[in-house]
Every structure is written in structure tokens, then in C-alpha cells.
């Protein structure tokens, strides 16, 4: 079985983001694997460990993304393709077109895993556009996955704790949510082995694509944190009475 996993290199969610200029941010912070893509990598690794085959990672990012690609290779994947660009933020349609081209050139897969969302630009659509381009089915927000008789069965979370059970023909795209699995921690030998695995780097320009750029990031603004809390002191009963009064009469957020 051949499996692709789409992996984005993103800033650590714990890092402070400092906006620079109109629409950029200070990138001298820690970058790592997009958290949802970790579930995708893990699910792909488990599938291939069971069924045999290979897991190929595909990343579109700056050259510095190589570090993240290497760390992802230590999580049960076999090789990787990195398409280098000079921008962190690409339009989703463009990203999907690039991923599609790379996958077509590398040869068809049985399943493609991705994350449900990149935690930087939060577009929540790249996997759908990739599936459309390849003309195959897609399910996102996936929390359970299995394959049987050339069909993929997934569980997907919808509103209010309800879940949909979906069946798809293969090949298909599965975009992971938290809960799909418990990603492994890499062991030192895996990290060492990952250093020797093949990473094919391709410059975006060499793919010969014409990109459409449907959306443009005009500005990025810092959101200030709230200033500290007004601490309501006194006895427990006095404190909650004052709080309820504030919430009802001053803030008017409850009736």
C-alpha cells in the first residue's frame, strides 16, 4: 500500500507570535509538525506497518522546513518530498495544486492523509481541494479510521457530540482530527535512521504550475491579551453574589 501524508511546518502553538510589517510575523521562533498532521502521520504509519507498503510525506514550505520533515520521518514514514517556496502563507488552492502535482508525478497512492487544519492560517480546506483535484472522495475531522475490502470507513465528529460514520472508496483523502490515535514519541534510533531517509527537494518554480491565488492576505494584526482579572474577594457566598450581580447588571451576559 502506498500512502501520502501532507505535513505542514508551522510555528509551535505555545510560541508568541509577533506581527511584523503589514502581513508577516517574526519567524525566528520554534517551528514543528502541524499538530493535526501528527495524527495523520501516525495513522499512515500504523496502516503500512499492518498492510505493508510505504509512507511518503509531502511538505510545501520554506527550505527551513527540512528540520520538521526530518523529525516527521522518525515517526514511521519512509521518505519525503519537500517543495520549497519563499512564503509561509500560500493560498489553499495553490497549496492543493502543488500537492496534487507532486503526488501525480510520484505515482498514485491508495490513501492520502492530511490534518483537518493548519494551526497557523487555519484555512480548513486544503485537503478538500486536493481531493477535488485528484477527483477522489474526502472526509475531514476524522476521529476513527479503518480499511476493509478496498473501502475506507471513518468516523467524523459533527456538532453536539454526534458522529457520522462514512464509507469511502479508495483512493481517498482522510483529514485527521484529535482523537484519531495517540502519536508515538520517536526513539533515538528512529531519529538517527530518519537522517538517512530520502528527502527529495523540488523548487516550486520547477513544477511548472500556474497558480491562481484566490485569496490575498492583506493584513495581520496582533490581538492584545486581556488585562488582568478583577479579583472578587471576600467570603465564598459574598464573592459569588457579587459576581452574579456583575454578570447580570454590568456585563448583561446572563439574565
Amino acid at each position: 500500500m502506498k500512502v501520502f501524508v501532507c505535513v505542514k511546518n508551522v510555528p509551535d502553538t505555545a510560541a508568541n507570535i509577533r506581527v511584523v510589517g503589514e502581513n508577516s510575523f517574526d519567524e525566528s521562533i520554534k517551528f514543528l509538525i502541524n499538530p493535526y498532521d501528527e495524527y495523520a502521520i501516525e495513522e499512515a504509519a500504523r496502516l503500512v506497518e499492518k498492510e505493508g507498503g510505504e509512507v511518503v510525506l509531502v511538505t510545501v514550505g520554506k527550505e527551513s522546513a527540512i528540520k520538521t520533515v526530518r523529525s516527521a520521518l522518525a515517526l514511521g514514514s519512509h521518505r519525503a518530498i519537500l517543495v520549497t517556496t519563499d512564503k509561509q502563507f500560500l493560498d489553499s488552492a495553490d497549496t492543493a495544486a502543488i500537492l496534487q502535482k507532486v503526488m501525480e508525478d510520484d505515482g498514485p497512492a491508495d490513501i492520502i492523509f492530511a490534518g483537518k487544519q493548519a494551526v497557523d492560517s487555519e484555512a480548513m480546506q486544503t485537503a478538500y481541494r486536493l481531493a477535488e483535484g485528484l477527483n477522489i472522495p474526502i472526509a475531514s475531522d476524522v476521529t476513527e479510521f479503518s480499511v476493509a475490502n478496498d473501502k475506507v470507513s471513518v468516523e467524523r465528529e459533527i456538532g453536539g457530540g454526534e458522529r457520522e460514520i462514512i464509507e469511502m472508496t479508495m483512493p481517498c483523502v482522510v483529514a485527521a482530527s484529535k482523537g484519531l490515535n495517540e502519536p508515538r514519541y520517536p526513539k533515538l534510533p528512529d531519529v538517527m535512521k530518519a537522517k538517512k531517509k530520502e528527502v527529495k527537494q523540488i523548487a516550486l518554480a520547477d513544477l511548472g504550475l500556474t497558480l491562481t491565488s484566490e485569496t490575498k492576505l492583506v493584513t495581520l494584526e496582533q490581538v492584545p491579551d486581556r488585562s488582568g482579572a478583577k479579583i472578587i474577594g471576600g467570603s465564598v457566598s459574598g464573592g459569588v453574589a457579587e459576581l452574579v450581580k456583575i454578570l447580570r447588571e454590568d456585563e448583561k451576559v446572563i439574565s
Partner: protein
Amino acid sequence: MTKVAVLIETTDNEVKAANFGVLTAAHGDGHEIYAFLTGADAEGCKAVLGKYGVGAIISIEGDGADLQAKPDLKAKAIIAAMKEYETSVLLALSSSEGRDILARVAASLKVPLATDCLSVDISSSTVRKPYFSGKTIATLKMNGAYFLSAIRPNAVEPAEAPAEAAVISFTAVVGDYDGLVVKEIKQSSSGKVDLSEANVIVSGGRPIGSEENFKILEECADAMGGAVGASRVSVDEGYAPHSIQVGQTGKIVNPRLYIACGISGSVQHFAGMKTSKVIVAINSDKDAPIFNKCDYGIVGDIFEVVPALTAELAK
């Protein structure tokens, strides 16, 4: 004059209140608003949709196809309706249902889509949405003949704009497709408010300590007609189901009131509730980081403060 379509979400034939903000976002100088309905009783929704400015309710059906079981065909039917009524803008709730359908429509039409928008400006084709889970806000310009946006629940304050809504039946030719089929929907045990649409949320963290103890939060939430949320630790420890986790890897919520009980205030937790109108923290540690970035705080033991709060609300 822009023709704006709004995809309406219903539960048991009732228009969900969260749609009213989306309809309000569609208002504008002489915009014509089309409500797209699938699989619901359009006549029954007429009065409430009219109140929020809907001129036409398009009751969409596929020719023989089960649109609820085949989201790709539903997207196809919506595209057919957009073409038929020449609506260049399509708005929906940024719920799992709304995002899924809009992504299918956008991918198929090859047009721009922005999800989780805090506001939309139809005349300039721009939206504002969070990047980096609420640490920054991005303004995006959408290029092209169509403009699709999924709007975060509670982000736009509903405003009434009475209109006379006419019901129009529309049957799209969608053919059939077996690539993806929804086999079953597993209902949740409780008929509680969906967290991402709740107006009030009471959330619990690590010190809750067990599934049973969540009851004190439920009672408190019930007293305000709200819902219960949880931090990742409470979920990972098995005190709460994943479906109520708030944060980076859980739900994004946007209530008027968020009460964090025994939650330290990590960046990843704030990523999910940062835009709440008022944030209250109850924590036994006066130096807990959450007190530095919320509105009101009570220093105390949740097992004393929360029941007292519930009792006070009942007064």
C-alpha cells in the same frame, strides 16, 4: 445589488438560532437574501427567516438522491441553486456541517473560501478571521466571481430586518455518486446545546478529578441555560468526552460568558475561548496564569465556589 445565499442549518425542522448572526452578516445595502434549505420544512421556517431579512427560501432537493447521505451531491445541488438564482456570495455557519459543505462547494467551483470568519464585508470581498488560533487576526481579500465564507457562531450580533419570505422549490439534477456515503449518524447521549454555539459555557480542568464531579459544572451551566466544556487534561484523563474539549485541538467556542473552573490558562486552552465576551476564572492559586488574561476572578476551591455560584444563580 448583490444576491447573497445563506445556507441554513436546522435541527428537527427548526432554524438554529446560530443562523441569525450569519443572516445578519448577509444584510447590506439592498442585498437580496436567499436562504438555502435542504431536508427541512421550508414553510415552517418562513416566519423566522423573514424576520432576519430573507426574501426567498430556496427549498433544495436532488432528483431522487439522498442529499443528507451524500455531501458531494448536496454540494452539487447547492452549486446548481447558486447558478439558478445567480447568487455570487454563499455564507454558512462555521460549524462542522457548514465548513464541510462550503469546502466541497469551493473546491468544486474553484473559488475562494474563508472559514471561521469573525466578520465579512461583502462589498469589498474581504473577511476577518483568526490566524494562529486567535493570537492574530488576518484580513483576507477574496478574488473572483464568487465569495464563500463560513462565519463563527456568535461572532456577528443578530439584528432583525423584517422581510416577506417566499418559498421556492428547486430540484437540482445531481445524478448519483457512491464514492462517499454517510452510513449512519450516531446520536450523542444528551440533547445538550452544541458547545460552539452555546451562549454560556462552564468549563472544568484537572482538579475536577472524575467524570462524576462534572455534575457540579453541569448544574451550574444548567442554571444559566449553558453548556459544559473541558480542558485537554480533563479529556485526556477521561473525565470528559473529547467532543467537549475547548482549545487548540478541541472546539473553538465564542460564548458571551465563559467560566473556567480549575483551569490554569495555557495558550492552547485560550486558543479555543479567547474571543468569549466575558471570561471568569475560578482557581485556588492566586498566581494561576489565567488570572492575568481574564476579566473576573475568584480565588478559591472549585468544589466550594461552583456549588455556591449555582445556588446564587437560582435565587
